């Protein structure tokens, strides 16, 4: 962070000649400020289960703007003091007394987050400096940023997603979350697995049939994947509704800024239990499991030909999709990752791990200084790196098999 701005003031005492000069840093002035949170009826906070690292997180929700913040225990302590009666100087003293150390930058960042989420009483629009910074950005950076902006424009959201989901849930969607539905899906998957096993000797023939009409097969596969992907997201949203939580958005975006995908914003499920979150996470991949099973069963009972090959191919792709979705260590925040993060009680595991990565060479020189939570983040990084490496090696092998000159 840059040096704090300074203001120089000149004062005179009444009846005396001469003057005094005072240099006041912005942070020094800030200490007198008494942050005040919005009225109690406009926010809610839920304690999350204790994490594997030993800490506890809290999800703070602005009930008016439907925005959420994840607070750690220190930030939660600060939040409890932002009642308008404590100055930042008093808050920092109290914080020091409670935790034995104090970092002023932490208060500033927390205040910024709270303002952005509309959880503190507003003090006007603070967007100016950002625009000044933007105006000083280098040409190439601006070019890159505008390209990324156009790429992001492909994102869209469904208006009134919560109302839409509530209606679907009320008119039959709730049946998806009956234990019988789960039992039937698993039974179907078992039968489909047996049929897929019986068809597996014909895999090479199916591949050849599909390869004969690559564009047609490709287009059909893409259409099927797209439809199932939309259903997957809809089921996540309906699962969220089954716990009477709000679906903030449904839409299409670039996962981690790269991978185009549908999504349902189910952040409100953090106001519920850990079990609810895991069920919402699991509900999505069950859609791939169900439709993949249907495809395998239909393939088994279809006459030999392109139709059978196509159904078998769809079954393979959907089951594989379910597996990829449930695999937690890919650096992507897919359903499996969410389940692991929820079970560990570390909802921002990926972000924390990525933030730790650049410091790792230095930190590993003193392994005793690493906390339990940081060891978990290191394990996550390691598993993700190994998984990506294996994936790449497996695919290099596949590409090599396609090119006869490499043999």
């Amino acid at each position: 962070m840059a040096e704090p701005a300074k203001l120089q003031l000149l004062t005179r005492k009444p009846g005396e000649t001469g003057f005094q000069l005072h240099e006041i840093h912005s942070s020094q002035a800030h200490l007198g400020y008494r942050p005040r949170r919005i009225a109690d009826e406009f926010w809610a906070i839920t304690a999350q289960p204790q994490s594997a690292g030993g800490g506890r997180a809290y999800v703070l929700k602005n009930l008016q703007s439907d925005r959420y913040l994840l607070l750690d225990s220190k930030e939660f302590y600060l939040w409890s003091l932002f009642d308008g009666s404590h100055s930042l100087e008093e808050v920092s003293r109290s914080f020091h007394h409670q935790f034995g150390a104090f970092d002023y930058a932490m208060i500033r960042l927390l205040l910024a987050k709270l303002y952005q989420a509309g959880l503190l009483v507003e003090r006007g629009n603070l967007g100016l400096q950002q625009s000044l910074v933007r105006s000083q950005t280098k040409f190439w950076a601006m070019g890159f940023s505008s390209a990324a902006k156009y790429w992001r424009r492909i994102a869209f959201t469904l208006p009134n997603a919560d109302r839409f989901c509530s209606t679907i849930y009320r008119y039959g969607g709730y049946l998806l979350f009956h234990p019988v539905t789960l039992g039937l899906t698993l039974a179907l998957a078992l039968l489909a697995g047996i049929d897929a096993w019986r068809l597996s000797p014909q895999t090479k023939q199916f591949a050849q049939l599909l390869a004969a009409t690559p564009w047609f097969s490709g287009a059909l596969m893409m259409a099927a994947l797209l439809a199932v992907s939309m259903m997957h997201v809809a089921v996540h949203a309906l699962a969220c509704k089954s716990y009477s939580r709000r679906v903030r958005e449904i839409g299409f975006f670039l996962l981690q800024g790269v991978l185009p995908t549908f999504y349902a914003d189910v952040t409100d499920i953090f106001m519920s239990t850990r079990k609810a979150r895991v069920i919402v996470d699991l509900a999505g991949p069950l859609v791939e499991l169900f439709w993949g099973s249907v495809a395998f069963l239909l393939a088994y009972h279809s006459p030999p030909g392109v139709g059978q090959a196509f159904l078998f191919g769809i079954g393979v792709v959907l089951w594989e999709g379910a597996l990829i979705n449930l695999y937690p260590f890919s650096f992507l925040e897919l359903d499996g990752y969410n389940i692991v993060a929820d079970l560990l009680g570390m909802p921002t595991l990926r972000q924390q791990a990525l933030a730790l990565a650049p410091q790792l060479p230095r930190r590993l020189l003193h392994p005793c200084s690493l906390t339990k939570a940081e060891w978990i983040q290191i394990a996550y990084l390691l598993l993700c790196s190994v998984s990506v490496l294996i994936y790449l090696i497996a695919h290099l092998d596949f590409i090599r098999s396609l090119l006869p000159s490499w043999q």
Partner: protein
Amino acid sequence: MSPLIDILSRVVLFQDLDASALATLAPLLIAKKFAAGTVIFRELDDSDALYIVEKGTIVVSKHVSGDVDMVLTRFAPGDFFGEMGLFDNAPRSATANVETDSLLWRLDRSVFHDIFSHHPEMAAKICYRLVTIFIERLRVTNEQTRDAIRWGLEATGYVSGNQSLFGRKST
């Protein structure tokens, strides 16, 4: 070269004048001594002269509220201030405070007008230099405005950049 002409030759305002022009100008200036802590002129005083600093430092401030002024700038030997008073009848826009014992040279507006009448070429050179100095000081003022805004933003807890909000998008 007399000591005063030597001093004037180092003042940016007169850097386009040759030795004879400086010799013409020197007798028109009046020496003024000020003790530390005194005030040369106050904000809203009548404005009628420019000051050149030979010795000492001057703090220029603007009243904010009560007994508090905001420091705008400082002037050291070789600098000059109060130039608006040469052209403008409006009251002083800021207060000039003497920080350390100072020796200043005062150029009255009436004298400056005489230079216009009797030495137009010299006046033109001074005016040209004044315009460039006005521009430079305007730039400095813009920077000061930006710093003041930055100070206000930071003092109210502003942190640049968007802070990420928490959320889960199930895909």
